[in-house]
Structures are given as structure tokens and as C-alpha cells.
């Protein structure tokens, strides 16, 4: 527990010192969202229809963008290798990375959602759904992108590889999150979709740390 607190403090400190790491993905999110109306026309009704999908696709891509550098520094300067050698200190490290990743990429998206709703003409009912899906979905995004980052830490070519690995795993989330928002737009109940997202989040929360742990071990071996 002490280790987790210290490690989390370290991650947050690093985020505070390397602002580009988390600001760029957030900026990317906003820019992609503002490109869509320019690309397909500013028709309010059209925007309302495509909003759920567009928001979630932008969220997926921006989280992916942030994942790339997640473990790189710690791999390069040997922190990762020496943590793996301690075995037990690797767990709090993984959790600290997960939490700080969500705080730096997921949470800003949630906080930005009112602005996004304005940009894309989302009405208040769908806005609530959007907020809820982002709250439930972004932690899952973080889990999967940390997994992807852990798998590719020592890879020679990162970048597009990470997208190839992780985007297929995002698909269920994309489907249910945008379905929930569509249902909300049609004033239908969407608790089912939220419940499924919650279930996926819990399952991922139980399994992903193990996978991240062994991925890191393999990568430094």
C-alpha cells in the first residue's frame, strides 16, 4: 500500500513534468472532434446522429496515442528491469500506471464531455448517457491500452503495431458505448448497455493486471 502511494505520487509527478504526454492526446481528441463537422457538414441533425460513434472513436484513438510512451522511459533507463527483479514491487507499479493513465487520459475526456456535447449538438438526455459511458468506458480503455503498451515495451517498432493489437479489443466497448448513447437519444432505457460495460470493466480489472505483469516480465527477459 505504501509502495502504491509512492509509485502513484511518482507517476503524477512525472505527468506534471512532462505535460505534453497527456496534453497532446487531449488536444488530439478535441481536434478530431472538430474536424468531423468540417468534413461531413454542419447539419445539426446529422451531427446528432453521428455524435456517439464519433466521440467514442476519437476517445479510442487519443487513448491509444497516450499509451505509446507509457513504459518507454522506465524501460530505457532500466527501472522496469530492476523492478521485475524485485518481483513483488511490480504489482504496485502496474496499478500506479493504470491509475495514472486513467487520470491523465480518461478523466480529461470525461471533463471535456460538456464541451464536446456543445460542439456536436448533443441533447441533454444523450449527454447524460455520454457522461456515464465515458465514466465507465475510459477505465476499460486505460486497462487495454496499458496492456498494449506493456506488450510492446521492448518492440523495435511501436506505433502502428500498438493500434493493430489494441483496436480489435476495443470493439465491444465501442459497440456498447455508442449503443447506449443512441438509445438515450431515442429516449429508450440504456441501463442494459451500461451494465454490460460495467461487467466488462470488472472482468478486465480482474484479468488485465496479470497480463500486464507477465507482459512486462517477458519484455525485460
Amino acid at each position, binding site marked *: 500500500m505504501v509502495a502504491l502511494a509512492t509509485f502513484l505520487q511518482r507517476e503524477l509527478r512525472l505527468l506534471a513534468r512532462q505535460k505534453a504526454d497527456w496534453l497532446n492526446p487531449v488536444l488530439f481528441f478535441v481536434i478530431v472532434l472538430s474536424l468531423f463537422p468540417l468534413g461531413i457538414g454542419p447539419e445539426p441533425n446529422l451531427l446528432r446522429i453521428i455524435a456517439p460513434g464519433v466521440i467514442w472513436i476519437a476517445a479510442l484513438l487519443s487513448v491509444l496515442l497516450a499509451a505509446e510512451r507509457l513504459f518507454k522511459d522506465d524501460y530505457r533507463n532500466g527501472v522496469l528491469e530492476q523492478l521485475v527483479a524485485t518481483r513483488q514491487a511490480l504489482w504496485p507499479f502496474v496499478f500506479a500506471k493504470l491509475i495514472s493513465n486513467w487520470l491523465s487520459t480518461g478523466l480529461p475526456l470525461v471533463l471535456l464531455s460538456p464541451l464536446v456535447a456543445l460542439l456536436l449538438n448533443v441533447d441533454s438526455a444523450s449527454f447524460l448517457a455520454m457522461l456515464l459511458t465515458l465514466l465507465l468506458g475510459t477505465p476499460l480503455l486505460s486497462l487495454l491500452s496499458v*496492456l498494449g503498451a506493456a*506488450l*510492446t515495451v*521492448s*518492440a*523495435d*517498432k511501436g506505433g502502428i*503495431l500498438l493500434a*493493430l*493489437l489494441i*483496436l*480489435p*479489443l476495443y*470493439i*465491444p466497448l465501442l*459497440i*456498447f458505448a455508442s*449503443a447506449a448513447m443512441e438509445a438515450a437519444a431515442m429516449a429508450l432505457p440504456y441501463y442494459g448497455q451500461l451494465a454490460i460495460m460495467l461487467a*466488462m470493466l470488472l472482468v478486465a480489472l480482474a*484479468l488485465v493486471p496479470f*497480463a500486464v505483469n*507477465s*507482459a512486462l516480465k*517477458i*519484455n525485460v*527477459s
Partner: protein
Amino acid sequence: MFKWLHPLAKPETVYQLCGRLYPWLLTAALLLLLLGNIWGLAFTPPDYQQGDSYRIIHIHVPAAIMSMGAYSAMAIAAFVALVWQVKVAQWSVLAIAPIGAVYTAIALITGMAWGKPMWGTWWVWDARLTSELILLFLYLGVIALSGAFSDRQTGAKVASLLAVVGVINLPVIHFSVEWWNTLHQGASITKFAKPSIDPSMLWPLLISILAFKVLMLALICLRLRTAILVNEQHRPWVRAMAGDQ
């Protein structure tokens, strides 16, 4: 408990076993494929609804079934590789992945070619086609990941890990795509009527499925042999063999 499996974990034994099985498996696969396909193409009556276009079934269905079969084989190998650190299992993951990817691509292409006359369009976001497409992405992910490391061993292990993660995800993906498909049921899509298949059509289909399966085994033998050679090239037995040739 796994004592009797232990000699199988020895690369040299596996290499020789695969070498002995390969010609038989390949011959059997080719004969079965010829038999099943010629029978299916020429000696069965046409479907009363779809006419002769249904004959694509004799490659589409075997490829689709075995694309998933290959994934489960790959996932089992990956699991064994990770839990028991069996190197041969690691290499078989990499040996199977391209086979699975080719089968999946075949299933997709033939599905499209079948869809065009039946649905009037090359591609529909049908649940099965979409799942198959994602399966192809997963295969490509495993292949790309395994090649991305300067250390071959690391690549094989990480790819195994991804294969296991993928197999946990596959049911979720499949379920969500199916659900998404019913939600967005398009107007123009008419689903296949699934009549109970006539025995005269069933036999060639079963033979073709078997042919694809045996062909997969033959290809695994061939590719695993190469993988063993590459990864064991410093061993005396490999060097002795290469010196003989």
C-alpha cells in the same frame, strides 16, 4: 500426470515426428480436397433457392470453421507455452498464426463472393462476416507482434500472451457484434434461409471440412519444422543434419 507428454516437448522428437507425418498428411489433404470439391462442384444438385452459387459453401464453410479451429489450437498452444514454458508450444503459436490468417482471409473472400449474388453487395456488416474480419485482425496482430522484437524468443512469448488475451476476448467480441447486428438490422439484408441440408450435399461438405483440417495439420508440421530449425540452429543435432546435406 504429463509424464507421457514430456518427450513431445523435446524439439528434436517433434521435428522428426512432424517430418514423418508431413508427406502423409499433405497427400491425404490434397486427395480429400479434390474429392470433396469435385463432388461438391459437379455431382450434387443445385440448391433450390440459390442455384449453383451455393457451391461456394464447399470452401467457405470449411475455411470459416477451421479459421476458428486454428485460433483455438493456437490459443491452447499459447497457454501451454506460457504456463509450462514449453518452447515447442511457443513456436507452434507462430507456426499456426499465418495458417489461421490465410483461412480467415479465404472465409472472408469467399463470403464476399457468395454475398454478391445473394445479397446484391460484396460486403454487408453481417455479424458473422464482421466477427471473421476481427478474427483476421487478431491473427495479424499476433503475426505482427511476433516479428516486432529483435529477440525472437521475446517475440514468441509476447505473441503467445496476446493469443491468450485474444481468446478471452473472442466470445465477448462475437457476442457484441451479434448483438450490434440485430440492433442495426439493415433493410436490404435478407438473411439466409437455413434449410436442413440434404445428405447428398452434406457428404462432400464434410469431406471438404476434413480436408481443410488435415491440410492445416500438414502445414503446421511443415512450419513447425522450420521454426524448430531456426530456433535450435545452435544445437548439435541441427548442425549435424545441416552438415550432412
